[in-house]
C-alpha cells in the first residue's frame, strides 16, 4: 500500500457532523472497528472521549485509562510474546541433569514441571559451563510443550516393554542411560504416580544413597556436588539438611517451573538397544473400579446428598449416570437413606474430591470441615442463605430433584451425540 494518505472529504464531513445518520458507522470505519478512535485527516489519531467510558456508581461517566477498555488490541501482543520466548540452546553441555518425569496421562504434570525447573537451576548455575537437562520419558505421550518446560535433550523410550507398570524394563533403560551419559544429577519426582517407585529402584540398583522428599536446594561450597538440600523425613515431620547427592527424589513445588525460555528438546537415542528382560512382575492391566465402591476419602468426584433430597431414586440414578461416588450428610445417614460409611464430614469421612456436588446439604460446620480439601464445590439447594452456598464455587438455587434430572438429561444427551459422532 502506498504511503500517500487518501482523504475522503465526504466521510470527514460525516465524521465531524454528529447529527449525521451515518456518523457512527463512518467513525467505526475510520477507526478500524472502534468508534472511539480514528485516524484524522493529517494522519493523527483522533479520540472521541464521549463514546468511551462507563457510568460510575454515582451516575457520573468514568473513563478507565488502565487499558482494559481499549478493545481487542492487547491480546495479540501477549500471544506474540509467548512465541517470542528466547530460545536457549546448549550445544556442548558441561554435564547433564537427568529428569525422569511421571508423564501421568501422557503429559507433563505440575510436579514434573517443578522438577524441570529444579533441573534448570542445577544446570544453569554456572553460566560459564552450562549443563543440559535430559528428560527420560517412557511410552506414548501427548505433550507438545517439552521445549517450554526447559528440556534440552529428550530420551524417548517407546515400545511394549515399557508400557504400563514395567518397573524392571524402565529400570534397565535408566541404567543404560546412566552408563551412556553418566549425568551429574538424577532428579525424579517423589510422587505416587510412579516416580517414587522408579527412583528408589534406580538408586538401589546403582547402589547410591538418594535424598528423598527434597523440597529445597541451596548452593553450598562444602558439598561434593556444590549443593545442599532440605528433605522431608520421618513421614513429613522432620526436615533433614544434607548435601545433595547424585540422586534426588523431589517433592512438588521444589522449584518454580521454567517460564521465560524455550529449549531445544532435541531427541537422543541410546547408543545400543535395550536387552530383552524377563520380567518377574506381570501387569494384568488396570482394574475397572466401580465409583460407588471407591472409598470416599479417595474419590475424585462425589455427589453428596443431604436433608433436602426427597427423590432418592433420582439421586442414585444421577450418581450412576454421572459416574460419581455417593456421599451423604449426617442427617441423610441418620435417617437411614444412606449407609454410615458414606457420611462426609468431621464425624464421617474427610474427603479430598476434586469436585464435590452437595445436593440439598445446608452445610453444618462439621460437614464443611470434612470437605475442606475439595477443589470445586457445587451446591444445589433451595435455601440461598445456607452456609454451603457460601462455600460453593457454583451454587444453583432450586429444586434439587429437577436440577439433577436436567443434568442427567444433559449428560445422556452429550453421550448420545458422542456415540452418533463416533
Amino acid at each position, binding site marked *: 500500500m502506498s504511503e500517500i494518505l487518501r482523504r475522503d472529504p465526504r466521510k470527514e464531513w460525516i465524521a465531524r457532523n454528529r447529527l449525521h445518520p451515518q456518523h457512527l458507522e463512518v467513525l467505526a470505519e475510520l477507526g478500524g472497528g472502534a468508534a472511539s478512535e480514528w485516524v484524522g485527516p493529517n494522519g493523527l489519531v483522533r479520540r472521541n472521549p464521549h463514546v468511551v467510558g462507563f457510568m460510575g456508581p454515582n451516575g457520573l461517566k468514568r473513563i478507565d485509562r488502565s487499558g482494559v477498555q481499549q478493545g481487542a488490541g492487547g491480546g495479540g501482543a501477549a500471544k506474540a510474546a509467548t512465541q517470542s520466548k528466547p530460545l536457549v540452546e546448549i550445544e556442548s553441555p558441561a554435564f547433564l541433569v537427568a529428569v525422569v518425569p511421571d508423564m501421568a496421562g501422557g503429559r507433563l504434570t505440575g510436579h514434573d514441571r517443578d522438577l524441570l525447573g529444579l533441573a534448570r537451576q542445577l544446570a544453569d548455575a554456572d553460566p560459564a559451563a552450562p549443563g543440559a537437562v535430559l528428560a527420560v520419558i517412557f511410552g506414548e505421550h501427548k505433550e507438545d510443550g517439552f521445549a517450554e518446560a526447559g528440556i534440552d535433550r529428550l530420551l524417548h523410550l517407546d515400545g511394549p516393554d515399557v508400557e504400563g507398570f514395567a518397573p524392571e524394563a524402565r529400570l534397565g533403560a535408566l541404567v543404560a542411560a546412566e552408563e551412556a551419559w553418566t549425568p551429574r544429577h538424577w532428579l525424579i519426582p517423589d510422587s505416587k504416580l510412579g516416580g517414587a517407585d522408579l527412583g528408589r529402584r534406580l538408586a538401589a540398583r546403582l547402589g547410591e544413597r538418594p535424598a528423598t522428599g527434597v523440597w529445597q536446594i541451596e548452593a553450598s561450597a562444602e558439598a561434593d556436588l556444590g549443593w545442599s538440600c532440605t528433605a522431608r523425613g520421618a513421614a513429613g515431620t522432620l526436615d533433614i539438611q544434607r548435601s545433595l547427592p547424585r540422586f534426588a527424589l523431589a517433592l512438588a513445588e521444589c522449584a518454580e517451573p521454567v517460564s521465560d525460555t524455550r529449549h531445544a528438546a532435541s531427541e537422543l537415542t541410546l547408543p545400543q538397544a535395550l536387552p530383552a528382560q524377563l520380567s518377574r512382575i506381570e501387569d494384568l492391566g488396570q482394574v475397572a473400579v466401580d465409583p460407588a465402591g471407591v472409598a470416599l476419602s479417595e474419590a475424585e468426584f462425589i455427589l453428596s446428598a443431604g436433608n433436602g433430597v426427597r427423590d432418592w431414586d433420582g439421586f442414585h440414578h444421577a450418581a450412576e449416570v454421572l459416574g460419581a461416588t455417593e456421599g451423604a450428610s449426617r442427617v441423610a445417614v441418620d435417617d437411614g437413606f444412606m449407609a454410615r460409611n458414606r457420611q462426609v464430614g468431621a464425624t464421617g469421612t474427610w474427603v479430598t474430591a476434586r*469436585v464435590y456436588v452437595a445436593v440439598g446439604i445446608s452445610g453444618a460446620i462439621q460437614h464443611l470441615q470434612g470437605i475442606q480439601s475439595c477443589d470445586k464445590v457445587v451446591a444445589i439447594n433451595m435455601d440461598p442463605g445456607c452456609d454451603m452456598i457460601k462455600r460453593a464455587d457454583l451454587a444453583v438455587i432450586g429444586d434439587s430433584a429437577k436440577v439433577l434430572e436436567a443434568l442427567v438429561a444433559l449428560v445422556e444427551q452429550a453421550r448420545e451425540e458422542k456415540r452418533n459422532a463416533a
Partner: protein
Amino acid sequence: MTVLVSVGRHPVTGRSRRADQDARGVELARTLPGAEIGLLHAGRLDEGNEAALRGYLGMGFDALTLIEQPESSDALPALAEALKAAPPQLVIAGERAEQGEGSGLLPYLLAERLGWPLVSGLAAVEEVSGGVATVLQALPRGQRRRLKVRLPAIVTVDAAAPAPRQSAFGPAQRGRLEVSEAPVAADVEMAEWQFKPARKRPKRLKIVKAASARDRFKAAAAKAEGGGGQVLTDVTAEQGAAAVYKLLKEEGVLR
C-alpha cells in the same frame, strides 16, 4: 510370610506407637487365609519402643522377632541376614518409616540385596498360589492395577490398604518379644545430617512474568479469584443444570 514392622511416631504428640503403614501391612497379611505370619523388627528395645511393638502383638500375635540394634544404625544388613536365614514367601513392609530418615528405601535395598522382585503401593493381596502372588496395586484416586509377581517377593503397602484392626490390650501384654542379636552396621552418612522439626513450607506465590509493564500492572491490579463463588438464583432447572454440567466438563470428571 513376614511383615517388617517399625516403631511409629504420632504426628501430633510424637509419642511412639505402632506405625500406621506397617500396621496396614500386618492387616494385609491377616486377610490371607491360612498364612503363617511372622513379625520382624530391627531396632532398639526400650520402654517406649516396647509399648509400640506390643501394639502389633495386640493385633492377635503370640510373638514378635526383634533384632536388637542400637539407635541410628543401619537395619539393612541385620534384616537381610534374618530373611536370608529363613526366607519367607512374601515380605510385607510399610512404605516408609515414621521416624528417622523415613526415606522408604529399605524395601528396595532389601529387594536388591536378596535379588527378589518388589511391588510397591499394594491395596490388597488377592491370591498366593503356585509361587505367584496376584496383587492389587493402588493408584491415585481409588484406581487399581492388578499385577502378578513371582515369589519370593517384597511388597509395600499403600494407605489404601485395609485399615489396621484395633490393637487389643490383652494379647499385647501377653505376647512375647523374641530378642535376637545381629551384627551392627553404623549409619555414618546420616550422622552428618542436621535434623530439625519440619518447617511449614511456604505457600507458592503466583509470580507473574509479563513482557510489558501494562501486563504486569493488569496482573497486579486483577481482583483476587475466589472468595464467594457464583450463585445462580431464579434460574430454571435446565439453566442450573447446564451451569453445573459446564463445570463438571471443565474439571474433566465426566467420562
